[in-house]
């Protein structure tokens, strides 16, 4: 009897202890995804997480770095277990399917006003009047690298880089003619086959009507732009593999000194050898034929509708993207911030001490220039499929299987079948 009583007491005590401990230790877990940042910026991200957790002891951030954000996010949604906060591309696709929060419901006006208007209000995070994504860091298409040595070998003045796209293609063709190199590192693929649309948006070519219900891409300007591209491809201004490349081929061509010019953000500096750095310059992106430029889309932060703690997720998301953290991130790599205050930070006003700072200031200067800044954002549902159609048809034009006119007719017809 005594033994049973003692045993019962021990069991009850143990159960109570476990429950008390569990309650005391119960934390809110927030899962946070980033895209390919762990290898070079692990310390920075972990530092940010530690800081947030120290200020919010009841929150635990679980960090996961992915190389296939869209595929993995889709899989996580299908399994019903998406991350609370995710660094993501193409937020509009997810906004359209109602799986991410409209931040108008989670953030105050003051918080939303933190971010650069052009990006937050009108960028890819905007969908049907709501705002579904926070811009985090920008990095693509912020400048142009060019190889002075190749310029000299081609008989071009290395101190006079192209200032317009017309000059850029002309220089590319001259380089092809006078050297055994190619002029411009460009392909029809790129990230999700965006490089062809990139060129058209850069030149301010009209793609769809105002309602986005009809394709109007078959217009004289588009013909002119494509003809310039095709001519450059035919004479060797652009590598022949541009029609079948993938991943980072354009970057690799430039690093191999196969090509002389490469429009890209300064963040690729970490791949450039010291020897190559001695030979190259980084300048503003050339202006399109009508004086326009295409601005690269930043990385976005989204909050999943399935999050059990959306307010805490939103708080963490605004912490990650606040001015202080973004400026710290910019000190590590040549990316551009996305908050208004960050642009005014002394770090971006001082005399550049290294390449990263030079690249950042150049990018910010371009953002603040009074020229049409065209954003590369999806303009319709089925946008990914429309880009693939455009790529396939332009490929056929580049390899000489069809004329420019036929290309644009095909694109228009196939796009209209999707709209």
């Amino acid at each position, binding site marked *: 009897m005594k033994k049973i009583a003692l045993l019962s007491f021990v069991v009850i005590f143990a159960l109570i202890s476990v429950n008390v401990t569990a309650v005391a230790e119960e934390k809110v877990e927030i899962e946070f995804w980033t895209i390919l940042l762990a290898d070079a910026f692990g310390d920075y991200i972990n530092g940010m997480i530690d800081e947030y957790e120290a200020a919010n002891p009841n929150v635990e951030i679980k960090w996961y770095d992915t190389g296939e954000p869209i595929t993995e996010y889709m899989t996580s949604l299908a399994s019903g277990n998406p991350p609370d906060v995710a660094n993501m591309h193409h937020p509009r696709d997810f906004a359209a399917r109602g799986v991410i929060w409209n931040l108008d419901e989670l953030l105050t006006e003051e918080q939303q006003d933190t971010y650069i208007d052009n990006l937050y209000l009108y960028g890819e995070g905007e969908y049907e009047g709501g705002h579904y994504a926070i811009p985090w860091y920008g990095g693509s298409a912020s400048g142009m690298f060019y190889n002075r040595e190749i310029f000299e070998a081609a008989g071009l003045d290395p101190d006079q880089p192209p200032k317009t796209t017309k000059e850029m293609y002309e220089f590319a063709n001259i380089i092809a003619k006078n050297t055994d190199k190619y002029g411009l590192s460009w392909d029809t693929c790129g990230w999700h086959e965006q490089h062809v649309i990139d060129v058209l948006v850069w030149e301010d070519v009209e793609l769809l009507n105002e309602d986005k219900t009809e394709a109007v891409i078959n217009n004289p300007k588009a013909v002119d732009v494509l003809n310039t591209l095709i001519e450059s491809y035919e004479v060797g201004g652009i590598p022949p593999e541009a029609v079948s490349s*993938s991943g980072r081929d354009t970057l690799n061509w430039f690093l191999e000194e196969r090509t002389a010019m490469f429009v890209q953000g300064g963040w690729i500096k970490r791949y450039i050898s010291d020897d190559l750095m001695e030979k190259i310059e980084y300048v503003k992106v050339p202006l399109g034929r009508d004086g326009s430029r295409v601005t690269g889309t930043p990385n976005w932060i989204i909050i999943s509708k399935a999050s059990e703690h959306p307010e805490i997720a939103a708080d963490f998301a605004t912490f990650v993207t606040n001015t202080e953290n973004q400026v710290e991130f910019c000190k590590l790599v040549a990316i551009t911030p996305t908050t208004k205050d960050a642009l005014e930070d002394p770090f971006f006003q001082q005399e550049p001490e290294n390449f990263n700072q030079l690249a950042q200031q150049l990018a910010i200067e371009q953002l603040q220039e009074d020229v049409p800044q065209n954003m590369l954002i999806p303009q319709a549902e089925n946008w990914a499929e429309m880009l*693939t159609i455009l790529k396939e048809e332009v490929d056929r034009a580049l*390899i000489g299987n069809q004329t420019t006119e036929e290309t644009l007719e095909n694109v228009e017809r196939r796009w209209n079948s999707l709209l």
Partner: protein
Amino acid sequence: MKIMEDFHYWKFKRKIAPYLFLLPGLIMLSLFFFWPILNTFRYSFCKYDVITPPVYIGLQNYNRLLTDQSFIQALQNTVKYSLIVVPCLIVIPLFLALLIDQNLKYIKFFRVLYYLPRIMSLVVAGVIWKFMFQSDGVINSLLTFVGFGKVGWLSSPKVAIFSVAILTIWIASAYYMIIYLAGLQSIPVSLIESAKIDGASKFRRLWHIIIPLMKPYILTVTLVSTVGAMRVFGEVYILTSGGPGGATNVLTYFVYQRAFSFMKMGYASAAASILLGILIIVSIIYMYLFSKGEIK
């Protein structure tokens, strides 16, 4: 009575035991193979983007595929690619196996050397071949050196499919070489010796003795390489991304794009189901030939 009971129990156990041993494998197969296939077939009749629940739309996906020029091109490219790769994978590994099935000094070194492509990661092999295929890469440099012109290995729509096939053949030959080697080493030496004594030349020994006895292995290689060729993906993804102009866009790449780039899982499932149907038909034909014991 107890003896009879024990006997029935032992008989029952003996009947049931093999199935119990097969059960774990069957469960795994069901979970990771049969269930996904059934689901894919189910989704092929739906409008489904993975994120929102599937909506039944009947045969709409299949109807659309029949008029989708990208799908038709992918189907044609898959057949073209298979017609290039399969004969090469039947002949080249057999030739390699014959080479290394000799009693020579250091033959083991050559066996390892010929097998090396197989152990290399597809991504690494693909990147290396991509470099070599560049217009100013090593292959074109050699061709130019011997007096031929440059070839657009990755930029010509007529050649690009061959470039993808070359990568596949380079990697897969090692695998089939081992299958053939096993076959060659199962041929009784006495048969070959007898033929030698009777004055049969090397070619006659090969044609009249070795190849007939190797037929089961040749059939196996044909079936496996055909199925593998129709399911090619990695080589296309790394070398050409389906280009130029869709010239190397094969069925699996088409499925991948529709599923993960366009978020049209239902449509991709329909294409995948058609591919599965084709593979089943091909497999049935080969199994029939296999059971007959000869290639007609």
